[in-house]
C-alpha cells in the first residue's frame, strides 16, 4: 500500500501548509487528499487518529483537553465509516443486480418475441414498452392457414419480475394450444384453466383475444377483464368502446367467455391497449380516454405503426418520461 505509507507525511504537509497560511489552495489540496484516501479505503476514524497524533508531534504543548476531545470524534466517526462501507457494498450488489436484470430482460424479449404479420388489406402497428426492465404486458400475433389474423394482448396485475415470469407461462400455454383453428372464447377458456392451475392465487391476468377473418371482414373477440379497446367507424368518424364482458384469467376454473362479432369496413380501426396506456398519470390525474382519442385522431392519416409510435411519444412526454406501468398499444387498421 503505497498511499498508506506516504499518507502520514502527506497529511502532515497539508496540515502545516494550512496552519501557516489559511489559503483556499491548501484546502483544495485537502479535498484531493480525501479523494485519494477514500480510493484507498482509509476509514474516517483512521484520519481522526492521524490528525490527533500529528497534533501531538507538531505541538507538544497542546492541552490535554483538546486531545481528549478527539476520542469522542473518533468514536463518532467509526459509525460513519461503517455506514460508508456498507453503502459501498450495497452499491456493488446493486450493480450486479442491474446487470442480471438486463440479461433477464433480453432473455424475456427473445422468449416473448412475436412478429407483426404483414398481410394485404390490414395495416398493423404494435408497441410495448416496460416501465421497469421486465415487461408484464404481452402481445402476440398468429396468422393461420386461412389467413386469419389473431391478436392477443394481456396484462398481469402487477409489474416487474413476477409479472414477467407469469407472462412467459402464458406465452407457452398459447404455443401449446391445439393447432386446429380455435375461436377467441375457446382460447380464453383454455388459458383460464392453465392460469387457474399454475399461477399464484394473488396474481391475475387480463387478456383480450381477437381474430380477424379477411375473407368475411368479420372481427371476432372475447375479453377476460381486459381494458376495453376502441372501435373506430371510418364512415361516421366515430369511436366507441370495444366492450366485452368476462372474468379475469385465473379466478374461476369453469369460466365461460362470451364471444362478440362485428364487421370491419375499409378505414375502420381496432385499438387495443393495456391499462398502462389509460393509466398514464399527469399532474391532473389519469388521462381521459377522450385524450387518447384526440391523439389517435391527430395521427390518423399515418400508418398503424407510426400512429402507435407517435402516441407513445406524446404520452411519454406528458408523464415527463416516467412510465408508471407497462405500456402496450396495438392498432389494426383496415386498408381503404
Amino acid at each position, binding site marked *: 500500500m503505497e498511499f498508506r505509507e506516504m499518507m502520514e507525511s502527506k497529511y502532515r504537509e497539508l496540515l502545516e501548509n494550512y496552519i501557516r497560511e489559511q489559503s483556499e489552495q491548501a484546502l483544495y489540496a485537502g479535498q484531493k487528499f480525501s479523494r485519494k484516501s477514500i480510493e484507498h479505503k482509509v476509514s474516517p476514524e483512521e484520519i481522526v487518529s492521524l490528525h490527533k497524533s500529528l497534533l501531538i508531534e507538531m505541538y507538544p504543548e497542546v492541552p490535554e483537553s483538546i486531545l481528549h476531545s478527539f476520542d469522542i470524534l473518533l468514536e463518532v466517526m*467509526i*459509525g460513519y465509516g*461503517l455506514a460508508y*462501507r456498507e453503502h459501498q457494498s450495497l452499491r456493488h450488489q446493486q450493480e450486479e443486480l442491474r446487470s442480471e436484470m438486463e440479461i433477464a430482460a433480453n432473455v424475456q424479449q427473445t422468449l416473448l418475441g412475436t412478429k407483426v404479420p404483414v398481410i394485404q388489406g390490414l395495416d398493423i402497428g404494435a408497441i410495448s414498452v416496460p416501465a421497469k426492465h421486465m415487461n408484464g404486458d404481452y402481445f402476440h400475433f398468429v396468422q393461420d392457414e386461412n389467413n386469419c389474423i389473431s391478436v392477443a394482448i394481456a396484462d398481469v396485475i402487477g409489474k416487474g419480475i413476477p409479472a414477467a415470469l407469469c407472462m412467459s407461462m402464458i406465452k407457452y400455454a398459447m404455443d401449446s394450444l391445439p393447432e386446429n383453428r380455435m375461436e377467441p372464447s375457446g382460447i380464453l377458456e383454455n388459458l383460464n384453466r392453465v392460469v387457474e392451475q399454475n399461477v399464484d392465487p394473488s396474481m391475475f391476468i387480463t387478456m383480450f383475444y381477437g381474430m380477424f377473418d379477411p375473407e368475411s371482414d368479420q372481427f371476432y373477440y372475447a375479453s377476460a377483464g381486459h381494458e376495453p379497446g376502441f372501435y373506430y367507424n371510418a364512415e361516421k368518424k366515430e369511436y366507441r368502446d370495444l366492450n366485452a364482458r368476462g372474468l379475469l384469467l385465473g379466478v374461476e376454473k369453469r369460466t365461460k367467455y362470451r364471444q362478440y362479432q362485428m364487421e370491419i369496413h375499409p378505414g375502420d380501426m381496432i385499438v387495443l391497449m393495456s391499462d398502462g396506456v389509460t393509466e398514464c398519470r399527469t399532474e391532473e390525474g389519469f388521462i381521459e380516454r377522450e385524450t387518447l382519442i384526440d391523439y389517435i385522431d391527430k395521427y390518423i392519416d399515418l400508418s398503424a405503426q407510426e400512429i402507435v409510435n407517435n402516441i407513445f411519444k406524446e404520452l411519454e412526454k406528458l408523464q415527463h418520461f416516467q412510465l408508471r406501468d407497462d405500456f402496450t398499444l396495438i392498432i389494426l387498421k383496415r386498408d381503404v
Partner: protein
Amino acid sequence: MSIQSCVTIINEWDIVAARQLGRNVAKELGFGTVDQARITTAISELARNIYLYAGKGQICIDKLNDAGKAGLRIHAADNGPGINDIRQVMEDGFSTSGGLGAGLPGVKRLMDDFHIESETGSGTQIKATKWLR
C-alpha cells in the same frame, strides 16, 4: 491459550462495563486507539443485541496467543430466542435500514474473524477476533 473475563449483560449499563473491559484488554495487548475504538464498537453492538433481543447474556473477552500472534476475542453468548435466518441478519442493509446501528455485518467488518452459531429457541453464540498487527 487464553485468559478470560466476562460481563453479564442485563441492562444498558452493562454494555458500558463490557466496553470498558474490552478497552482495558485491548490497551494491555497494545492495540492502537483506532483498533481500540473498533473493538469497543463491536462489543457495544453485540452487547446491545443481547440487551435488546435476548434480555440476558454474557460478553467475554479472551486474550489469544496463536503461534506468537496476539489477539483479542469477543465471545457473546445468550440463551435468547435465537436467530431464525442468519443469512438475512448478515445481509447489508437488513438491520441498518431500521436505524438499529451497525448490525452484525458491521461487527464483521470491524473485526478480523467472525463466527456465529444460533438456534431458534436456544440462543446465539458469536465469536469475533481482532489480531494485533
